[in-house]
């Protein structure tokens, strides 16, 4: 082995060599593929099992779901839980409706404002180096701020401006909190455009607004879709803002309903699993549509 030619010494080196020796023996006996596939399989099972358990639980009877020892496979499948959920708690229609409205509104606002702002920073010059560093940095800082810091004073502000317990207030709050994501996600897409695109568009007779809307925006469509879906996921999933800024079915969203589901001594797990599945399904669907681009959102554009 090549490493043996080098002068040995140090714990790190000897550890390295020993690990490497083990690795080589595993490889030699053909166990390596088995090991890596085994680890990958454990990872998949560990990741999927809780999701499987909730989804399958929503399609079982309560007895079947909470049996000891656990019934790994459902004995019968039924949609009765979903029927019962809406029959026993008709306010679930309201929660679902509020979630859809708030998510759609916040996403439209955040993507529109965020995309326009990003284009401005990339395309134009601003005084005091604002566009190159200060504003993007400030926008990044807001992303790192724990939301609880602003949501407490925000509660007082909403109270004073009668935005409390309204869908509109929640739309504004979610839009504001997702603009930073959109800016940092779109930044990479705009940077990948060739410089001469806007000039060429203006030569062709477009106004500057026209160049942005008709030439640039269509070219960053993959970015817009990714940013839209990422914002949808964020707004749909949030609990903190919704639980603080809303108080009844006129604005409360699904996560609030789920988090406050257990009112009595028993948790109605057969209904709660159905409600949880309803909350989970749309985001999973959207996420799979853009799975390659999603990492950009999670890493603020650091991973392409």
């Amino acid at each position, binding site marked *: 082995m090549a490493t043996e030619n080098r002068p040995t010494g140090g714990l790190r080196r000897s550890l390295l060599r020993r690990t490497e020796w083990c690795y080589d023996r595993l490889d030699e006996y053909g166990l390596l593929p088995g090991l890596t596939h085994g680890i990958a399989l454990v990872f998949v099972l560990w990741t999927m099992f809780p999701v499987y358990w909730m989804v399958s639980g929503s399609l079982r009877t309560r007895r079947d779901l909470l049996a000891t020892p656990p019934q790994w496979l459902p004995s019968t499948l039924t949609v009765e839980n979903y029927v019962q959920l809406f029959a026993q708690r008709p306010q679930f229609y309201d929660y679902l409706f509020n979630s859809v409205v708030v998510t759609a509104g916040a996403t439209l606002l955040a993507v529109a404002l965020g995309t326009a702002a990003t284009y401005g920073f990339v395309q134009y010059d601003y005084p005091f180096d604002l566009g190159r560093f200060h504003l993007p940095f400030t926008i990044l800082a807001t992303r790192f701020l724990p939301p609880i810091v602003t949501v407490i004073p925000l509660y007082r502000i909403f109270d004073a401006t009668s935005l409390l317990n309204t869908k509109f207030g929640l739309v504004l709050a979610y839009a504001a909190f997702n603009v930073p994501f959109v800016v940092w996600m779109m930044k990479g897409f705009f940077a990948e455009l060739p410089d001469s695109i806007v000039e060429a568009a203006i030569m062709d007779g477009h106004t500057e607004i026209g160049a942005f809307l008709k030439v640039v925006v269509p070219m960053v469509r993959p970015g817009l879709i990714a940013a839209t879906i990422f914002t949808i996921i964020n707004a749909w999933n949030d609990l903190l803002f919704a639980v603080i800024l809303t108080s009844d079915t006129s604005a409360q969203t699904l996560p609030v309903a789920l988090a406050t589901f257990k009112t009595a001594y028993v948790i109605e797990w057969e209904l709660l699993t159905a409600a949880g599945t309803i909350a989970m399904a749309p985001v999973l669907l959207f996420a799979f549509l853009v799975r390659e681009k999603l990492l950009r959102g999670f*890493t603020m554009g650091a991973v392409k």
Partner: protein
Amino acid sequence: MVRQRNSRVTAPAERALLWVEDHLRWFLTLPALVLLVAFFAYPIGRALYLSVYSFGTTGRSFVGVENYIAILTKGAFWDSLWITAKFMILAVTLEVSLGIAIAFVLNSRVRFRGLVQTIGIVPLVISPTVVALLWQLLYQNGGVLDFLVGPLTGGPVPWLSSPDVALWALVIPDVWQMTPLVTLIVLAGLQSVPDHVREAAVMDGAGRLRRLVDVTLPYVRELIVLVVILRVVGTMRVFAKVFVLTRGGPAGSTNVVSMKLYREAFRYGNYGRASTMALLLLVFALLITYAFAKISEVEF
């Protein structure tokens, strides 16, 4: 501006359009900035104002820096910071080490890698509220987890009712949800190592692990720093899991800082105290952002 303008007298609507054209850079950025000022800068200013008042049943009264002194000298706020730190250290350590290990495994010859990556996205996009419920179901007395670990622990585990276990009962769902994030990011970095670099190292006779440490690692080092910072920030703001699973209990053993602030403000109505704590938390957050900006050399 190179664009030529029509010199004849223009209609008001057209003139307005031209004016918008000339100031387009501000029209593009100002709406977003106004929204951000209204929802970040103004609330922080408002918190500063609230932090010098005390809120009681009879209304509020000016108390100056009393809130700051009370919070910094009494243990409750520091306790919640310490609990948050414990949660952060446990969760981030597990997520990052497991995540990197799995990324390296998946980077070797694994079939169905794309499928495994796709499955890794599943926990990431599920609401933390739902994640907490998934695990609450598994934590049920006599439920799946008790069935699996029962033979090791000799009986059901008081997952959410014992002060010694409850913090772990929060760490596990967070690790479940966020380990795939580390895996996916690091894996993306590993796959970006150019083949010729790897081949050159093989030619030089570097062993497998030497290649890993000296050739591959530099490519992913920055990403690992990034993901650690992302998770530090993420665990600092943990709320939904605590809200659903423990509400800060039992015996205050999981009273993380978000929960502490929430209760201070909305259970005890003490907005002054809560705002003061929020501002102190803001200082920590800014320090972390600054570190991030330095490390990743932010520029636009």
